[in-house]
């Protein structure tokens, strides 16, 4: 007769691992919250009196401007490609997503280069018509310029989400509208647009998060926002508390956006009630309209991707011999390595968190697990500050307690550990979401079946769950990889002294009047970024079917 081992049913080691990871990931956020109640640093009154209003105004205008422009660009193109048949329609579906691969700061200095005295436009006018302008053709190094740059790189968020919303809207609903006598335009404004509103707002919210995260563009254009303020307080004034105050105000912006987004969604149900969700049939229009629609999409694609990308390629052509050397290859190797480590760690952590959730019958496990994904909404500069403070405190404790005070130095802060830690906090959601979707797709029953066949939870994970979600694990790693590769503000603050990645190198070169040289690193970042974009598009296309 075998003896039955008893266990407390609510405890398993996965819950334990998950709690450790959550504690680790939540540290920076908790730090920011706690430090908020410390007395402000010396430079706070200076910033509050002289700069705060400007930060506030610029950040707000930037947010509103980008929201309006991404709405215009994203929704119009999404409506065209999901409703009309015109030349190139199939290609624009994914071409219009490509700008996402263009980090804002690279777009910014590429456009400065294009419009510059030595840029292609002015050169053309000079050589052909002998017309020359003074300085730059159009001065974009200001707030409207920053709005323009950020909008053309971020509108694909709105495009993607509203396109899939338009595609999911039931055919019968639109047909009902036509039969009631509404034309396409009226149907768009009265039916399609209101129904897609939650999706569109979600897209704009995502773009807004990216705007708050942006450091490169606004810094390069000299527009002072909260993010640049955090840098200034941290680096120029060495005032951590002031940086935290600014970070906390920035967080209020973030939560406000998240709150407004959830508020507008409310409890209303915008999806079709029945299961008859046949995609809307695209309609044929007159040749003139076809050409018009093609032209609109082409122009947006040219401005948001092709022209700046060709400019970058030209610069690579001119400078690669000088730039691409052993040191540059080390840079690629190092950046890829860093991104891969972050990707793999995030996916491992996500699997542990989600597996704990999978085995646990409790709701609270689900809600605390969500905390791990908050980082994606929080600007990189804020996370950097939140990571730095506990690590500095830890270093100080280590040196005071274990070593003599003489050998003061860096132990964790200012090392790659700090950088990778911050990447994990910031990009957890990027890896977590695909893994979560993967687990949901395979369902819980295969896991339960395995455990009922006498196989323990750990072995079940290895033999059943992981093999079944293999592809989502890879896509999770890939998505994190690309985001880390592009990441700028966090890397700038936390990288070890003189440590360069592709992103920081490109930014450093561009800000040091070496725009053409910086293109080499930029092109690698963009090309790598395009891979998961195409991947993502495939995933959405599959959902349509």
């Amino acid at each position, binding site marked *: 007769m075998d003896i*039955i081992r008893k266990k*407390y*049913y609510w405890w398993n080691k996965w819950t334990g691992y998950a709690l450790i990871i959550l504690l680790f990931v939540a540290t920076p956020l908790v730090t920011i919250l706690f430090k908020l109640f410390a007395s402000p640093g010396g430079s706070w009154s200076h910033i509050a009196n002289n700069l705060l209003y400007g930060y506030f105004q610029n950040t707000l205008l930037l947010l509103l401007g980008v929201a309006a422009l991404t709405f215009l660009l994203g929704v119009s193109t999404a409506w065209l490609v999901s409703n009309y048949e015109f030349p190139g329609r199939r290609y624009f579906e994914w071409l219009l997503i490509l700008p996402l691969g263009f980090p804002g700061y690279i777009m910014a200095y590429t456009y400065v280069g294009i419009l510059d005295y030595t840029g292609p436009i002015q050169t053309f006018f000079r050589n052909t018509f002998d017309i020359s302008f003074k300085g730059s053709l159009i001065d974009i190094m200001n707030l409207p310029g920053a709005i323009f740059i950020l909008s053309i790189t971020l509108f694909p968020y709105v495009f993607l989400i509203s396109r899939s919303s338009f595609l999911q809207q039931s055919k019968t609903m639109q047909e009902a509208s036509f039969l009631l006598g509404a034309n396409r335009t009226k149907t768009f404004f009265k039916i399609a647009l209101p129904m897609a509103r939650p999706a569109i707002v979600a897209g704009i919210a995502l773009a807004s998060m990216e705007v708050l995260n942006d450091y490169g563009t606004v810094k390069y254009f000299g527009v002072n926002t909260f993010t640049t303020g955090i840098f200034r307080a941290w680096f120029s004034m060495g005032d951590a508390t002031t940086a935290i105050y600014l970070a906390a105000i920035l967080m209020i912006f973030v939560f406000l956006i998240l709150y407004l987004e959830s508020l507008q969604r409310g409890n209303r149900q915008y999806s079709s009630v029945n299961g008859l969700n046949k995609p809307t049939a695209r309609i044929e229009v007159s040749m003139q309209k076809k050409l018009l629609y093609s032209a609109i999409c082409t122009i947006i694609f040219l401005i948001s991707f092709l022209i700046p990308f060709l400019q970058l390629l030209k610069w690579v052509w001119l400078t690669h011999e000088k730039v691409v050397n052993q040191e540059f290859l080390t840079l690629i190797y190092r950046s890829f390595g860093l991104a891969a480590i972050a990707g793999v760690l995030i996916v491992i952590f996500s699997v542990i968190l989600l597996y704990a959730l999978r085995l646990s019958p409790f709701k609270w496990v689900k809600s605390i697990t969500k905390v791990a994904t908050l980082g994606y909404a929080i600007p990189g500069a804020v996370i950097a500050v939140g990571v730095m403070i506990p690590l500095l405190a830890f270093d100080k404790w280590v040196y005071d307690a274990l070593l003599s005070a003489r050998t003061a130095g860096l132990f964790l802060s200012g090392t790659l550990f700090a950088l990778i830690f911050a990447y994990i906090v910031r990009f957890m959601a990027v890896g977590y979401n695909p893994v979560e979707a993967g687990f949901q797709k395979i369902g819980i029953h*295969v896991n*339960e079946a*395995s*455990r009922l*066949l006498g196989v*323990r939870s750990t072995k079940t994970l290895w033999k059943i769950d992981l093999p*079944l979600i293999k592809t989502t694990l890879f896509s999770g790693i890939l998505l994190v990889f690309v985001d880390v590769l592009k990441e700028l503000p966090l890397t700038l603050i936390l990288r070890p002294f003189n440590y360069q990645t592709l992103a920081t190198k490109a930014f450093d070169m561009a800000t040091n009047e070496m725009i053409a040289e910086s293109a080499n690193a930029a092109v690698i970042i963009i090309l790598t970024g395009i891979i998961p974009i195409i991947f993502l598009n495939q995933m959405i296309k599959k959902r349509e079917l």
Partner: protein
Amino acid sequence: MSILSLRRINKKYGQAKVFAVNEVSFDVEEGEILALVGESGSGKTTLLRLIAGLEHPDDGTISLAGQVIVQGKESVPPHDRKVGMVFQDYALFPHLTILENVTFGIAKSKGNPEQLAKDTLKLVGLTEDFKKYPHQLSGGQQQRVALARAIAPNPRILLMDEPFSNLDAMLKDQVREEIRQIIKKTGITAIFVTHDTKDALSTADRIAILHKGYLQQIDIPKNLYETPVNPYVANFFGKRNELLATPSEDGFYTSFGFITDLEAKKYKRQVKLLFRPEHGEVVQREGQQLSGKIVKVSYFGSHQLVKISDDEGFRVTIRTNPGRIFDEVERTFFYLWKYDIEEAF
């Protein structure tokens, strides 16, 4: 000897106001097939998952093969319970072949796991295609694989969640019989959950009826049908007619006529006569019978249901053989050869 026993099991999900399972106690005898029957939300699937260890009760005790497996906050994890389960969606491992699926749960110590798996597959009627993957099989074949996988490790009890719900009507009768035979051949104790009374009546030795988390009655099918403990159980196997009747010295007065019954004098107040459609008979000749107007005849192939109305429009349903031909609005006579008497208020 009872192999599984549940004592005062309670289970509530999260913040839910009502219990999914409420004070449920019952025993399962070794080698029997028990059906847990109820509507959706009756707690039948929860009960199955509690036995499997995939959920934990708020309180109560479960013992399996003489050992306590659940008591208070303590619980034996599912992988140590030696419980076999066939899921409603079969939950076959899609990345493993049929043979690998069935071998998965067999302990290495048991001689030759692969041979044992093959034998089990043969037992459930699969003799080839061992190297195929689950998606290459038909639904019926997948179910056999799921059954083989569950019984191959020789579990102490076999649980099945809605085993017949994914099969079409044509296949169902055949599969019910086959599965019953396979289970009986292996001598394994089995519990299955179903919302279909036909599944339960044709496959199970005993049936437990659940309603809103409470166990209503557990008994052999004949007793449930003939001596239901309450109206819910009685109506579960098909609607009963309810006819109001006034008792007298030698019978009941109803709106369809008088029924001679010496039992009637035991009752003082108005009663309800409860009878199933098959407990009545339609006859042609006039006599000591009830009479009414035929308002609807529905043909079902094996039988017909005749709806008969009194002068006020109140209807009862009587079952007849399929060969009879009726004219609607025809006046007809019928009698009841079996009914239950219940006080009306």
